């Protein structure tokens, strides 16, 4: 608690000690109940039958393939959205054109769509009774209940993450540095690589982290398009569901704990970035 020497000055700009203490206690209690307790529960439940039981879970073929599928989906989705994010931010931040704010709204759209609806729209397009369903079936192409569908749904859900980290930052940075590089003889690509990219690297990393965490953890949208085919179209979050519904609680919580660790690492890296490079992440809290 902040030391304030002059008690009267303190009371003018700060609350009485008992108010401060009770507010802190209320906040702590609420956060513990809502956030920390569930987090603790995941690890407790996972370790309920000891470390040996964990070994069994991760030795299971189905668990292994779920992990691989999740990694594959993230490995496709994140780079795609990375390229999109950089391209969209470049066009939006460095140029003026009509309809720009509408474009930004569209980029944010997936944030306001329910995950289940996000999956549903691809079923309506590519599902058996979907728009292209008959054609796909005739040509023996599988999108729904297969990897392409999972990738599409995940790409939809995670599309805004990188773009929305970059757009405000690049808007704030303006065009002067790139122009300076070009008056000094650098080509446009060279200016982008040597000037723009270093300026946005931390925001880029930040966006990639968030995008990756969501891509690996997405449940609702993927649940709709995956078909839950064990060993084939089961991502880690879906595998958690299956194990849980089979009353294999240790298994479910073990896989959940792995995902929770990913979330914690993401949060840690995010806090580290904010603390260390707060200035390089425009629009983020401190200035």
């Amino acid at each position, binding site marked *: 608690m902040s030391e304030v020497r002059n008690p009267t000055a303190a009371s003018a700009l700060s609350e009485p000690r008992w108010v401060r203490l009770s507010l802190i206690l209320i906040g702590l209690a609420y956060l513990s109940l809502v956030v920390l307790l569930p987090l603790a529960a995941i690890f407790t439940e996972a370790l309920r039958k000891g470390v040996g039981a964990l070994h069994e879970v991760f030795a299971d073929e189905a668990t292994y393939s779920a992990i691989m599928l999740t990694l594959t989906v993230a490995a496709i989705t994140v780079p795609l959205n990375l*390229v999109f994010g950089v391209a969209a931010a470049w066009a939006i931040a460095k140029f003026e054109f009509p309809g720009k704010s509408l474009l930004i709204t*569209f980029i944010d759209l997936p944030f306001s769509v329910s995950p289940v609806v996000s999956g549903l729209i691809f079923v309506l397009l590519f599902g058996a009774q979907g728009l292209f369903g008959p054609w796909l079936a005739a040509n023996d192409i599988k999108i729904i209940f297969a990897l392409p569908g999972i990738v599409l749904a995940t790409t939809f859900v995670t599309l805004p993450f990188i773009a929305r980290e970059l757009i405000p930052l690049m808007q704030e940075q303006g*065009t002067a540095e790139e122009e300076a590089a070009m008056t000094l003889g650098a080509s446009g690509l060279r200016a982008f690589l040597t000037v723009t990219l270093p300026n946005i690297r931390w925001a880029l990393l930040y966006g990639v982290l968030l995008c990756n965490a969501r891509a690996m*953890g997405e449940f*609702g949208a993927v649940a709709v398009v995956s078909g839950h085919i064990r060993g084939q179209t089961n991502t880690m979050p879906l595998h958690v569901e299956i194990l849980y519904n089979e009353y294999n609680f240790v298994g479910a919580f073990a896989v959940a704990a792995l995902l929770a660790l990913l979330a914690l690492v993401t949060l840690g890296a995010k806090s580290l970035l904010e603390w260390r490079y707060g200035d390089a992440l425009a629009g983020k809290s401190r200035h």
Partner: protein
Amino acid sequence: MTALALPTREWLRPKPSALPGFGLTLGFALSYLALIVLIPLAVLVWRASGLGLSGLWTVATTPRVRAALETSFYLSFAAALVNAFFGLVIAWILTRYRFPGRTVLDAMVDLPFALPTAVAGIALAAIYASNGWVGSIVEAVTGLKIAFTPRGIFVALVFIGLPFVVRTVQPVLMDLDREVEEASATLGASRLQTVLRVILPALVPAVLTGFALAFARAVGEYGSVIFIAGNMPFISEIAPLLIIVQLEEFNYTGATAIATVMLSISFLSLLAINLIQSWSRRRFGDV
């Protein structure tokens, strides 16, 4: 650190700029956005328009659908309300007070964003079940069950809605000019009066925005709810789950109708947020 001054432009940035890549990046961004987001969403709207308004109404007012929509709507509202209050308290203590563990708690606020929803779902179900850490206590004291009742849905929606109000209020609270509070004190206001009449009114737009975001998120939430909800039709069934139920019965029409209603709710929330923000900009200047 103020770093380099921001460029102020005598003219709007050039329409044809010396920087390259506008056509390429905008073209790519627009095509990608159209393929992943706009066309799939348009297909949903197109399908729904095929039903006609009366068709939509018929589906949306079948008793089971209506019950699910009402459940989602009311519980989301209640959860967002609770988070509006506690989110304000947490934002307040995180920005105004210094206490051990503050930075860790600050990071933990984002956990509901980062934790895969399925993981959160099984963790909450474990804690709030009759034999869980919290569920057993509550049941012993009040005789009320939480998990597998609508109260469980409420708990899950509180969990996923927690970060919104905290994260919208925090920056506003941080930017709030301390001089305004000092001015209030020099004019004879007690600390409580200053808080109630000077600080809280300035936070209202941020709280409302956070509330609307949390509400919109909760209406569409699926993963964290289904494990704790019990999913009893007419009692503890949420709208997103009903979409999945319809899809499993290959009832695309029903799924489309429910999805359209949910999409409308989230767009109305989005609209509300925009209105709140433009209202507060007009009233308080840029916040």
